[in-house]
Each structure stands twice: as C-alpha cells, then as structure tokens.
C-alpha cells in the first residue's frame, strides 16, 4: 500500500522541472538566445589575436568597432587595418640642439591620437635638462610654460622608442603587445588585460594606462584611426606612441614631425639609403638613450650644431 508521503513528485523533481520551465520560457520567450550568440560582447569576448585573424575576421571586427564608436561618440570613424609596407623599418631622429621645448609636439600628438583629456594622458614627454648634464635624475618634465628656449637649459622630448629588443613585449602575459614588421611596437587594446607589467618594464616610461574611462570632447576626436593605433581606448588598457601608425602606413609623417616648428624631428625608412633618416644617421653623431640596456631603440638623438 502506498504511503502518503511516497509521492511521484519529490521536492527535487519539482524544483528541477520548475527551473527548466522558467529558463526555457525566459530564453525562448524574448529571443535572447538568438541575440546572445550574435551580440557584440560575445564577438568581443571570443575575438582571436589580431595576428591570427583571417581577413574576413578583421573585416568583421572593423564593422563591429565602427558601429560601437558611432554609437558611443556619434561620429563616423574610419578604422584602418593597413599592414606594414614591405621593406620598411621606421626610425626617428631628433635634433636636440634645435628643440626649444615648446611642447607643440605633445599637443599635436594628443590631438591626433585621441588620448584622454581627463584624466590627462600625453604620450610625449619633454624633459628639461640643465646645460652640462644628461642625468635623467636631474631632469624636469613639469617645467612651467614660459618663453622658450630658456637660458641655461636644453630639452629632450621622449616618447616610445619602439625598441627592437623591447622589454614590454617580453613581459606581456597575454602577448597583447608585439613588434610589427615595420618596427612599430603595437598594442591590441582588445587583448590587453591591464596588468601593467609593460609599464613596469619600460625603461623610458613610454606607456600610459587608462585608469578611468577616457574623456575626449567630441569635436576634438580624430576619426581617422587604425586598429592598432589611435582608435578610442577604453578603461583598463595600456596605450603608447605608435609613430602615428594610421599616418605612416599611408605614407604620411607622424603628427609630431609635422608639428615641430623648428624642424627638430626627422622620420623615415631606415632601409632606404636616400631617406632623410638614413642621411642623418650617416652624417650626424647619433646616440640612443640607455644603450647599456640593449633595447636597440629606433629613436636616435643628435646635436647638429
């Protein structure tokens, strides 16, 4: 004889059934299942590493990001994914005797590369040294704006040196930063997890971190971007100078080269013997910063007068 409590429907069975029923109602009812598998956040999460993407995947990423930027900033962005030119290795020359420390390069870079205004991020730092010393400990990069060049000082602007043997690339745990064939060390912002090991390892303090959501006034945005370069970043990723990859891969000079009013900056392809930078390296006594660290940087400094 069946006892009263010996029921077919146990508590366990009831809860199981109720759970399945409510879940299927929720998913099937509003079609969330469909959206989940096609949503942007899903694509973003399961995106491959940029170097392993096929051209179709790159195209998909582009359209997705362009849509996102349109929604967020209200402007049409051009997201380039140009690869490097063949037989090109970029190098940069900086004439310290000409630099007057006016910081126009700093602000041209900020304007070109969509860096955050609040909190303020500047990729180029201009160090001011007293004449007679090249001791970094005694340099100052917070010097006040005055009529430059000031007596008794000289100026050395610094940005990412695009090292051939870069420590940042070595320490990145996710390989979010790597060196492209044309020598530029790039960061894939969708792959960066924000651990900041690279900032700790960089001897030149070239990298900056987005501690907060970057704030840029919409009218100051530059819509001509590159995926690995100046596209708007999000909170929690590292960024740095990319030699204006969106410009140089189309043949133009970086923004800092064009902004310098005294012509202290030289840029070009070091593999072309007729380019300006090759001539500078042949004719000037160039040096690189912190050469004892063997980072093999691409940034050559010289005094021309």
């Amino acid at each position, binding site marked *: 004889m069946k006892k009263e409590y010996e029921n077919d429907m146990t508590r366990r069975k009831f809860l199981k059934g109720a759970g399945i029923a409510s879940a299927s109602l929720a998913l099937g009812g509003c079609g969330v299942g469909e959206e989940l598998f096609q949503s942007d956040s899903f694509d973003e999460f399961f995106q491959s590493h940029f170097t392993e993407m096929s051209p179709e995947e790159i195209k998909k990423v582009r359209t997705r990001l362009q849509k996102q930027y349109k929604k967020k900033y209200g402007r049409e962005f051009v997201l380039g994914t140009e690869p490097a*030119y063949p037989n090109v290795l970029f190098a940069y020359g900086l004439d310290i005797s000409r630099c*007057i*420390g*006016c*910081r*126009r390069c*700093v*602000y041209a870079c900020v304007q070109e590369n969509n860096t955050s205004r*609040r*909190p*303020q991020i*500047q990729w180029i*730092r201009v160090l001011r040294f007293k004449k007679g010393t090249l001791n970094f400990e005694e340099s100052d*990069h*917070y*010097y*006040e*704006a*005055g*009529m*430059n*060049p000031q007596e008794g000082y000289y100026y050395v602007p610094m940005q990412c040196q695009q090292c051939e043997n870069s420590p940042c690339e070595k320490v990145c745990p996710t390989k979010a930063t790597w060196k492209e064939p044309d020598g530029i060390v790039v960061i894939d912002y969708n792959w960066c997890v924000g651990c900041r090991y690279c900032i700790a390892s960089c001897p030149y303090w070239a990298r900056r971190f987005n501690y*907060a959501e970057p704030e840029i006034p919409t009218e100051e945005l530059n819509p001509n971007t590159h995926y690995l370069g100046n596209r708007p970043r999000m909170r929690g990723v590292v960024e740095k100078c990319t030699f204006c990859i969106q410009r*140089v891969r189309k*043949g*133009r*000079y970086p923004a800092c*080269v*064009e902004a*310098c*009013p*005294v*012509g202290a*900056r*030289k*840029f*070009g*392809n070091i593999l*072309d013997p007729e*380019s*300006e930078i090759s*001539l*500078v390296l042949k*004719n000037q006594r160039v040096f690189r910063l912190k050469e004892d660290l063997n980072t093999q940087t691409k940034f050559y400094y010289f005094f*021309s007068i």
Partner: protein
Amino acid sequence: MLKFRTREKYIPFLLIALIFLLVAGEVLAEQEEQEGGEVYPVPPPLVYQGLFPCQACHRKDIRGVSSPVDKGQSFLGKYLRAPDPRPRILVRMHRNINLKHADWQWCLNCHNTDERNYLKLINGDIIPFEKSHLLCGQCHGLIYRDWKLGIHGRRVGQWNGKKLYLLCSHCHDPHSPKFRKLMAMDPPRSPEYGRWESEDKH
C-alpha cells in the same frame, strides 16, 4: 670689290671666328648655370606687404640707373637720384626693417642695386626671390647642403613621396634671422593622489 693686301684678307674671317667663339662661350656658360637635378615646387616666397615689387619705386629711369622716385619735387613731378651705395642706417624709408644679420651687413650686399626686384650673388649673378636659397647658401653652405638633402627644417608631406620644401625665408626672416622665443605650451598635470584632476588646478 675690296682689294686686300697680303694677309689683311684674312681679317674678316678672323672677326667672324672671334664673334662665333664669343657667342658660343656665352651659350655654353648659360647651360652650365642651370641647376641640375629635380625641380621641387615651393610655395611662393614671403614678401613684405606693400613693398613688393620693389621696382614700383626703385625704377630704372632713362639713364638706366635705379633710384627712388620722389613725386612732386620738381616741375615734372619726378626727382631722380642715383642710389647711395654707402652702408648706413636708413632714415627716409624702410625704417621698419630691422637688419640684424651678421655685423657687417648692408642692404645692397644682397639686394641688387640696379634691379631691385632681384637679389645678387657674390659672383655677380642676379637671382629672383624664388631662388633666394642660392644667396643664403653662399655663407651657410653646410645648412644649404642639409636643406637640399631634406634634413634641415620642418618636413611636411609623405615620407615615401612628395614632400613640401620651404624656402629659407619661409621660416627665417632674412633681415633678422635669429628665431624669437616661442611661448611653450602648458606642462602636464602633476598627478594627485587618490583622485582625478580637479578643475581648479593650474
């Protein structure tokens, strides 16, 4: 019919040969003076407003010498004086041009006396303002060499293609070429512990 005695009959031929040589020499010299190499388009040289063309005032008169024209001084309305080549500070005109370019400079060292729309070189060549780099290059030879290679001065354009070349006078004022000081832009904000930048700093 002319009758020539002995070797006088050769004189016309000698004269013709001499003239031919002179003309040929001129033509060849002109060819050598042309600049070899590529031609780069350059924006027009900066000119002082209201002062160019110089020959509006420094006009050649009938005697072939340029002189400033003072209207209303004589019955004919023209009073022509020969140009004064002595180095001095100008008092009547061009007082706003501050000449501070090496200690011994004087206007007519570079500006052509007879045709004021042009400049002159040390070897006597007359060049237009569009070729003023030849004049500057006479003294600043190393800079001129660097400029021709593209490693002097500001570069705008394409690193693998067309670049914008500027003349010396686009950046350097030829009368007082030392750069004036530029106002530097604001320093980066000093980091504040614990919060984003406040509005009222700087």
